[in-house]
């Protein structure tokens, strides 16, 4: 998948990821207003939906989102760093570009190292203790340079049993787009409904996945929606053609 294909629907922005990036860089959207966690959730959903992982694009996304997080945390820091954060859009873009180029560079260097290691692996080195005569000589020259406390401390550390991590509160959401599609279609069959109804009591991931399902319905021409004002309620209803089709199927 290409990053260009990542469609977002955030509180402050709906549209493709690269457009969001541009608007941030041109300071038309305030980075402080953007919930980056939501961007990540959307990205993961997108990956799940596609069922494929393009490493190139994944790296690019990670580098960009990390850079945005850093920019944002710098913006959140009060006081002294004020002058650093007066990034003009051009500079911010250059910084992001520099990050991406660096990531490419080190990935290429990593490939080089991997190849080099493989090429060198036939040269094996000898690893053996010294012969007894030299060991005896070595013993004569041995002075107490290490502290026995180091060993006791290491054992103490190793005895530490980690606190069992309580994972009960982390429900593992296993919601699929197909499930949410079925859910939306059932609601559609009853008439119009609001998005809030569709995701009542749902967790964030389910909300994100439901949104994808809704976009899918729209793409298929099954549903349309109205939103009176920004942040207002989204009302969803079947398109006239879908309604006609359902009626004829029922009749």
């Amino acid at each position, binding site marked *: 998948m290409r990053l260009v294909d990542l469609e977002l629907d955030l509180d402050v922005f709906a549209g493709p990821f690269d457009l969001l990036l541009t608007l941030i860089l041109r300071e038309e959207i305030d980075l402080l207003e953007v919930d980056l966690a939501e961007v990540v959730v959307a990205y993961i959903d997108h990956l799940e939906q596609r069922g494929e992982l393009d490493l190139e694009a994944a790296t690019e996304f990670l580098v960009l989102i990390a850079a945005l997080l850093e920019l944002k945390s710098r913006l959140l820091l009060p006081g002294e760093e004020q002058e650093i954060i007066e990034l003009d859009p051009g500079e911010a*873009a250059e910084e992001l570009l520099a990050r*991406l180029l660096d990531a490419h*560079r*080190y990935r290429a260097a990593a*490939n080089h190292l991997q190849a080099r290691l493989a090429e060198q692996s036939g040269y094996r080195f000898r690893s053996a203790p010294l012969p007894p005569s030299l060991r005896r000589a070595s013993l004569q020259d041995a002075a107490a340079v290490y502290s026995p406390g180091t060993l006791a401390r290491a054992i103490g550390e190793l005895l530490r049993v980690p606190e069992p991590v309580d994972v009960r509160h982390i429900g593992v959401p296993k919601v699929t787009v197909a499930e949410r599609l079925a859910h939306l279609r059932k609601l559609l069959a009853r008439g119009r409904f609001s998005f809030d109804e569709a995701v009542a009591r749902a967790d964030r991931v389910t909300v994100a996945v439901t949104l994808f399902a809704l976009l899918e319905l729209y793409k298929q021409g099954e549903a349309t929606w109205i939103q009176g004002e920004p942040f207002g309620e989204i009302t969803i209803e079947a398109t006239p053609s879908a309604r006609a089709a359902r009626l004829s199927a029922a009749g």
Partner: protein
Amino acid sequence: MSEPTLTTTGAELERTIESLLFLSSEPVSAEALADATGEELHAVVTAVERLREHYEFERRGLVLRELGGGYVLSSHPDSEPAARRLLARPRTPPLTPAQAETLAIIAYLQPVSRPEIARIRGVGAESAAATLLERGMIEESGRSQFGAVLYRTTELFLRLFGLSSLDELPDIKEFDPEPELEQELRERLLKAGEARAGS
């Protein structure tokens, strides 16, 4: 009369150096060999070169190389299949992409902290760094001014990657992305979005 003696001395020195390199599990510098044998540095360097040529020209099973700041013996790669059958010890396992990236960043930027590595990669490097530490390819090298552990590569890193020093790593510029790719990234960052924004 002096010539045979000189020749003998040269051969003796070569022989002693062969013993010393065989016994030593780490690379040995010319200076250390000169100290141990009580010979002049230039005589040591000549003897080492003769030993290297002996292995090469006589097609011996050993190879003498200058790696990690000293001379070290290794088996000849032609024997690798037999060595793999004989030794339970596997050959150097390959690096995962995450380990290789982490190692590349450490090799070029050392000393470098884990947060810096994460900053470049966009993802953390805990488990990759732990494996590289365990395999002896990197080691800690003090702390940054913010208290983060700094890493650097080890002598073993040089040896495993067939390098005599870090200077032998290719210039990082050699890994610069193609200008077309850079252009494409630049456009994707700004222009592609602007086109949409303007539309």
